[in-house]
């Protein structure tokens, strides 16, 4: 009989109106890297919450080393040696790495901290697994990759045997990703069992031994990654064949729509400018991608462009007209649409119904507001229904669904419908596919290309390498607030792109 570190057998977890996990079995062998693959809403998070004792399943059992266990809360999970690196790190920013690692299990004598011992253990562990971290550095000063390694050390320090990684590569650069893959392999070689949650197929193929696929709360199957192709895996996940490659005709750029000249935007977090003297042109009928690692000034660039933040210097022209001082509303009515980076922060009023969010940019127009200032509810409902139909936005109760109750992919579709239907001349799409599943990504990419083919200027800001390589006609790489390279996606490679993104290579770029 096979030896399993942890077994989740026939787990069923229901929520009102939905079965989040329907008879799901997940068996994690000792020392293997096991991927858990599924689209958003497939039930991965629910299953992990069951494993962590946050939810109690209605049916099914959990076994550790073949013995049935009951996990009532996260402390039980911790006692069983289960640890997790969350997608959003749980670290205290102003503490050092070492302080974060020992947090909650502080070694002490009569209440006085005994850090020396802990430091020795941490150093030994990071040596053993190749986790290069400085235990005395403060979290706020170190890179995201190092923060992630701190999280890994936290698990190792607690002698966890079962390590769960929840979408760990979402925040990393290509170089950091390959480092993480190596670390995961080291860990499994030392006998740790790893559960790797992801929807990135390439990473799963590279690092995982086996893969369990979930779809819409149901168990689809478990396969050896050596026996399957990426296409087969994705078909299991989505339930149909998916086209990875974005189909598009060659671009036919027309007149200049957007012209940015020496734009400088201040940073909110530090004293330096976040965007420094950036100049660029975006023409009608082309998709330009602003690529770069998260936090290199892309967000501030978009804030400056959309009017959310004032410029320190420089100018912005739309159709040759200076809009540097124009308000957000003016820019919007002049033909800029903006799919924001953070759909919960900027894109939606979550407590509003879907139809009220559909008119967020246009509610003041004569179609939706009468002269006396009353909302035209019927027009709003008709308009929302049309967009829901055209863009296939799915929700429980149609236009009156509270936006908060919708899935991330459908929230994003609603925003995209709203912004594209405004018929903009310039469409700014900031990470439009973040956190979405393959099917939704395919849909959104098609929409972007359709906009381009309709003669609009599209500015795509993306952190996803596949997207950067596949969708745009031109790539501009941003590093520390400056444009350091212009690349042609047809001729460049991911490696070259990575070098520009990491600041290892730069050209003089003219707008």
């Amino acid at each position, binding site marked *: 009989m096979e030896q399993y570190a942890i077994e989740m057998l026939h787990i069923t977890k229901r929520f*009102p109106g939905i079965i989040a996990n329907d008879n799901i079995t997940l068996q994690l062998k000792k020392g293997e890297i096991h991927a858990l693959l599924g689209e958003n809403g497939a039930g991965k998070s629910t299953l992990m919450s069951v494993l962590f004792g946050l939810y109690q399943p209605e049916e099914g059992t959990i076994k550790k080393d073949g013995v049935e266990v009951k996990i009532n809360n996260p402390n039980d999970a911790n006692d069983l040696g289960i640890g997790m690196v969350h997608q959003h790190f749980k670290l205290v920013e102003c503490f050092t790495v070492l302080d974060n690692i020992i947090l909650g299990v502080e070694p002490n004598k009569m209440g006085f901290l005994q850090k020396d011992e802990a430091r020795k253990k941490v150093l030994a562990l990071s040596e053993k697994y190749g986790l290069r971290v400085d235990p005395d550095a403060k979290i706020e000063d170190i890179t995201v990759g190092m923060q992630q390694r701190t999280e890994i050390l936290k698990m190792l320090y607690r002698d966890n045997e079962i390590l769960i990684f929840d979408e760990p590569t979402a925040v990393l650069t290509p170089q950091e990703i390959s480092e993480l893959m190596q670390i995961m392999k080291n860990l499994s070689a030392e006998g740790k069992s790893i559960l790797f949650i992801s929807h990135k197929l390439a990473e799963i193929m590279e690092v995982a031994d086996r893969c369990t696929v979930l779809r819409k709360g149901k168990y689809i199957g478990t396969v050896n990654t050596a026996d399957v192709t990426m296409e087969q895996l994705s078909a299991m996940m989505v339930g149909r064949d998916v086209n990875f490659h974005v189909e598009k005709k060659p671009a036919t750029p027309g007149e200049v729509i957007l012209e940015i000249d020496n734009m400088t935007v201040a940073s909110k977090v530090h004293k330096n400018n976040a965007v420094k003297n950036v100049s660029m042109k975006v023409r009608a009928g082309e998709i330009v991608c602003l690529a770069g690692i998260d936090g290199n000034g892309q967000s501030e660039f978009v804030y400056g462009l959309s009017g959310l933040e004032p410029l320190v210097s420089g100018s912005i022209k739309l159709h040759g007209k200076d809009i540097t001082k124009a308000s957000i509303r003016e820019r919007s009515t002049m033909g800029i649409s903006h799919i*924001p980076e953070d759909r919960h922060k900027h894109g939606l*009023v979550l407590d509003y119904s879907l139809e009220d969010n559909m008119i*967020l940019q246009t*509610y003041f127009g004569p179609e939706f507001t009468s002269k006396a*200032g009353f909302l035209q509810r019927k027009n709003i409902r008709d308009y929302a229904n049309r967009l829901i139909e055209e863009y296939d936005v799915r929700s429980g109760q149609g236009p009156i669904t509270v936006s908060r109750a919708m899935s991330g992919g459908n929230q994003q579709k609603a925003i995209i419908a709203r912004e594209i239907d405004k018929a903009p001349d310039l469409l700014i799409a900031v990470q439009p596919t973040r956190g979405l599943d393959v099917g939704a990504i395919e849909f959104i990419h098609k929409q972007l290309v359709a906009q381009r083919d309709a003669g609009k200027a599209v500015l795509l800001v993306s952190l996803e390498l596949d997207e950067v390589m596949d969708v745009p006609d031109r790539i501009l790489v941003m590093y520390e607030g400056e444009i350091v390279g212009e690349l042609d996606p047809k001729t460049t490679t991911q490696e070259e792109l990575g070098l520009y993104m990491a600041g290892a290579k730069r050209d003089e770029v003219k707008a």
Partner: protein
Amino acid sequence: MKKVLKNPGMQAFLASLICIIIGLLIGYLVLLIINPEGAWESITNVIKNFFTWSKPKTQLKQFGNTLAKTMPLLMCSLSILFAYKVGLFNIGAAGQYVAGACASLYAALAWGWGWLPCMLFAIVCAGVLGAIVGILKAYCNVNEVISGIMLNWITLYLTNTVLSKVKEAASPYTLYLDDVNPSALLPNAGLNNLFNNNKYITIAVPLALIISIAIHILLSRTRLGYELKATGSNKNAAKYAGMRENTNIILTLIIAGGLAGLGASMLYQTGYMRWECTQSSVPGMGFNGIAAAFLGGLNPIGAIFSSFFIQHITDGGQYVNTNFYSSQISDLISSVIIYLCGFVLFIKLTMNKMLARSEERKLRQLKEAEAAAGKEVDQ
């Protein structure tokens, strides 16, 4: 039955009712602990309020008094709930109410203004107070609760100082409006006759009801309401959509302040009360408005009923038998009930959870039954 329970309006109503019942039970318990002998009589008197009187005519007149005091409370609760819908907790309503009292009384007594100018002046002054909170919030990110509370006290002592100029020589109370300037009294418009000639029943009553409905329409049907609620719910999204979120915050607090100020004018300009210039605590009207707003399910129409109920209980407190209890007990009982009123949202949440659970159970039973039936067929 389930369908009825799932209706949000019904839920709000039930939740409010449950809060009231729990509040009354705890109030009764307190009375029992202090002195079991008079407890039942006292608690029933609190509920009965003006019905404690035997003559129907007296009942009617007393009912009028409660009604007259309900209107300022309703205005305060509208002030709170309006700001709350825009994501602001206007605890400064208490001070804005005081500012309204100060403005209307001073204009009436010192300057001899008529009732309408006095009322408008009260709205403006209270609105200015709201604007201060709003400006601090919008441009300096000062929490509106902190600045609101501090302004409450500043306004109270300022009001004591200002109104001392128009107070009676022998007492700390302001002069009688009836004597000095009857033109500042709100017109009765014949409504007093409906309540056994209760002169405190004025146009304030219909005015307050109309304003409740107006606020309801403003919030639910207009572009301004759409913008304000969006700003309150997600300031960033409002900014992204090109709304001027700072202007909206200030505008909201001006309107909220104006409502509270109008409430004060609706009470003091009936002559029912005079200002006591040695007061050392902010009148509770603004604070009770918080409870009324929540008990009314944060709905302007619900606020009409909740305000009446809270005023009814507060007035009922004076019928607690003082042979058995000290006179402060009335405040204690009504405050226990008002305190419980704040739990409406909590009760609503619990109700929803229970509904969901029972549904889940049913679903499972259905499935099991189906499975069993399936098995039989197989065999």
